[in-house]
């Protein structure tokens, strides 16, 4: 299958995402922010970084990019869109996902391994995981504290749209070990149609044993399997 990877000025995880996609045995095409053509991508990744310098607010300016008009149309017609870190912030600013990402409660930029509990299998992104399984995937952000009003949080929980929650290494609730203070320990959420996923952790930085974890590959494989029926990866033996 073909992953389209958005490149804004200030994006920094685009090539890491391409590496992960290619490692998984799939095709990656880079999508320049000034273009509108999604080049036939089956899934568009909005990678991490600081698009347009995160001026005003993280993601606030990126949503005006010509590419984002196409991405919004694609998402609204059921296309798969996967926002990672800055991509999650952009999706919230573009109102493709509810809520907002605010300054970490620690006020620190945190670049550390985190443990995520898979909370739903009802999405192409997570269908290949086991319910309740714990993935080791790092975060790298200063503004990742998920915030939404009570009504929105209630809807997300009721509709099974929390994709990942930060937990302790053993899978128990994060408690005071939350890496950023997110409400309900939310690390990733789905839109109503379940075709748009936003997550702060970086699965592309957990794609081979050299990086300390291959757990992120489960998500790439899950998407690929859902789209093309072939999630088979050359590196499967390494997982």
């Amino acid at each position: 299958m073909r992953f389209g990877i958005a490149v804004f000025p200030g994006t920094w995880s685009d090539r890491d995402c391409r590496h992960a996609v290619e490692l998984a045995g799939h095709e990656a095409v880079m999508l320049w922010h000034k273009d509108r053509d999604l080049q036939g991508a089956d899934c568009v990744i909005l990678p991490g970084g600081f698009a347009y310098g995160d001026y005003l607010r993280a993601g606030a300016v990126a949503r005006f990019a010509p590419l984002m008009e196409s991405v919004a149309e694609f998402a609204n017609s059921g296309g798969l869109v996967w926002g990672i870190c800055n991509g999650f912030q952009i999706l919230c600013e573009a109102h493709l996902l509810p809520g907002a990402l605010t300054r970490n409660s620690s006020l620190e930029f945190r670049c550390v391994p985190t443990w995520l509990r898979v909370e739903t299998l009802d999405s192409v992104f997570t269908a290949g995981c086991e319910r309740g399984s714990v993935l080791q995937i790092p975060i790298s952000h200063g503004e990742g504290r998920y915030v939404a009003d009570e009504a929105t949080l209630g809807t997300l929980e009721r509709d099974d749209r929390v994709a990942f929650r930060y937990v302790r290494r053993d899978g128990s609730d994060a408690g005071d070990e939350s890496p950023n203070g997110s409400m309900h320990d939310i690390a990733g959420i789905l839109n109503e149609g379940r075709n748009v996923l936003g997550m702060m952790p970086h699965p592309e930085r957990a794609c081979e044993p050299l990086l300390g974890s291959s757990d992120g590959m489960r998500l790439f494989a899950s998407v690929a399997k859902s789209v093309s029926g072939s999630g088979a990866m050359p590196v499967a033996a390494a997982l």
Partner: protein
Amino acid sequence: MTFSVEVVVALKPVVNDPQGLVVRDGLHRLGFTGVRSVRVGKHLELEVEADDEAAALTQVEAMCEQLLRNTVIEDSRISSVRVLTRRAS
């Protein structure tokens, strides 16, 4: 006419403001123990062409809703309006 419009954008009262808490704690350490609360926000200065003040304010209020604030977590208010030039430049 050209107006200078100043806008303050700040987190809504219900949204935790860790920056404000850290500034408050710093002030306490400096001896300003009477500080009960600090909220940190942004200050924007806009120069806006409009026919009159009401039109300028209407424009800026629309800007706040569409870009200047994140309506999920931030409030905004116009803190000052003044005339810069009487004629369109």
